[in-house]
């Protein structure tokens, strides 16, 4: 998907073919949805070559899911950019990882994770009575983590921007203030749910964690520019899990 993809399967065995199917699927998603590809369906829609009514099944599904997410996030999630073109990457990533994970589940694999671009879908455990341990990246020290959570089937997505120092100039919105958060990590029942809400929650700034706190089934961990983290009321259960 134009980003690193890692698949780890625990216990049992899986042939190279199965891994290939997962990687191929994610490459397909990238070819179809990437705004950086000249012949992706997204780019062709943005050039006016395809109307949204005539688009593919997967694109129609993404457009519908994006619309629902926009409503559920009070408009903070919007695949329409300021210039009027669409960029569905904020929802495609989580959706695609979950679909990729389904390939493994349907092949009978019970314990795995699929990682792509910083978001992860877990299933089962790393080992008997041993959950998958997921670190939340240190926003100011990329090789370190600031928090460790234990997952058994949940999805986790982090939205944010780690650039510091020089003011982040947004050529599309020159007057827009720099974001209040450096990152927000959302844990949800699957990575699609986590990802589609992490995206708008980051845009909400300091209110984003309150928003996540109010959505049933989601927990979150937001980090601001001062290195202060705020967590939702149920987040601790993923930290304390054994």
């Amino acid at each position, binding site marked *: 998907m134009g*980003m690193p993809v*890692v698949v*780890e399967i625990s216990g049992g065995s899986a042939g190279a073919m199965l891994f290939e199917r997962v990687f191929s699927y994610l490459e397909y998603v990238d070819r179809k949805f*990437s*705004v*950086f590809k000249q012949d992706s369906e997204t780019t062709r829609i943005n050039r006016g070559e395809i109307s949204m009514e005539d688009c593919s099944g997967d694109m129609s599904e993404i457009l519908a899911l994006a619309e629902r997410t926009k409503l559920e996030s009070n408009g903070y999630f919007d695949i329409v*950019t300021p210039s009027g073109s669409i*960029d569905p*990457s*904020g929802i495609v990533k989580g959706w695609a990882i979950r679909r990729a994970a389904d390939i493994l589940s349907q092949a009978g694999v019970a314990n795995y*994770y699929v*990682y792509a*671009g*910083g978001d*992860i879908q877990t299933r089962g455990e790393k080992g008997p009575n041993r959950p*998958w*341990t*997921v*670190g*939340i*990246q*240190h*926003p100011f*020290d*990329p090789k*370190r*983590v*600031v*928090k*460790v959570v234990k997952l058994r089937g949940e999805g*986790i*997505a*982090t*939205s*944010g*921007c*780690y*650039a510091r120092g020089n003011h*982040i*100039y*947004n*050529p*599309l919105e020159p007057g827009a203030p720099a974001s209040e958060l*450096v*990152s927000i*990590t959302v844990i949800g029942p699957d990575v699609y749910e986590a990802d589609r809400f992490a995206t708008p929650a980051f845009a909400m700034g300091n209110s984003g*964690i*309150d928003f996540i*706190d*109010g959505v049933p089934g989601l927990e979150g961990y937001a*980090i601001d520019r001062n*290195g*202060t*983290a*705020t*967590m*939702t*009321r149920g*987040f*601790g259960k993923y930290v304390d899990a054994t």
Partner: protein
Amino acid sequence: MKKMLLAFLLIAFFALYAVSARAHGGDLLLLPLPAGRDPGFTPAGMVQPSVAAIAPTAAPGLVSVAAGEPSATPAPAESTPVAAVGQYRDGTYVGQSADAFYGLVQVQAVVSNGAVSDVAFLDYPHTHGTSVSINSYAAPMLVQEAISAQGADVDVVSGATLTSLAFRQSLESALVRAKA
């Protein structure tokens, strides 16, 4: 149920009161509570039914710490009668504790320049399970901590990679510079 309605009307009344006080600065129903007065907390006993439509969450927006320490005494030391309708003595006035069914409500109003400038909750329902969730809805207190690097080994790391939008922005700005 009646007591809960009373609590909501109470809170809603003060919300409406403070809003109208700011807007009009004058014709108010609230009377300072002189010592010895019968504690009925609802000032005039007459609350417009429409006031109940204001959501309780409107009230927390008004919660502000009045200047100075909240008064522990239930009434100002001297009796301060209303000078005229619409004229109120400047000062800090504490209402009697009122039973809002889920707990006690006590409100302090600060009057300055003849108008209510602040309304603060000195006590609000927080002991009953349901009342906790009501207050949490209004203003959840979420745990905070300073981040610190952890030494643990993990299986995988979740982090924010440069988003497509950020990448494109960066690319566009580079191209703008390239054109110049």
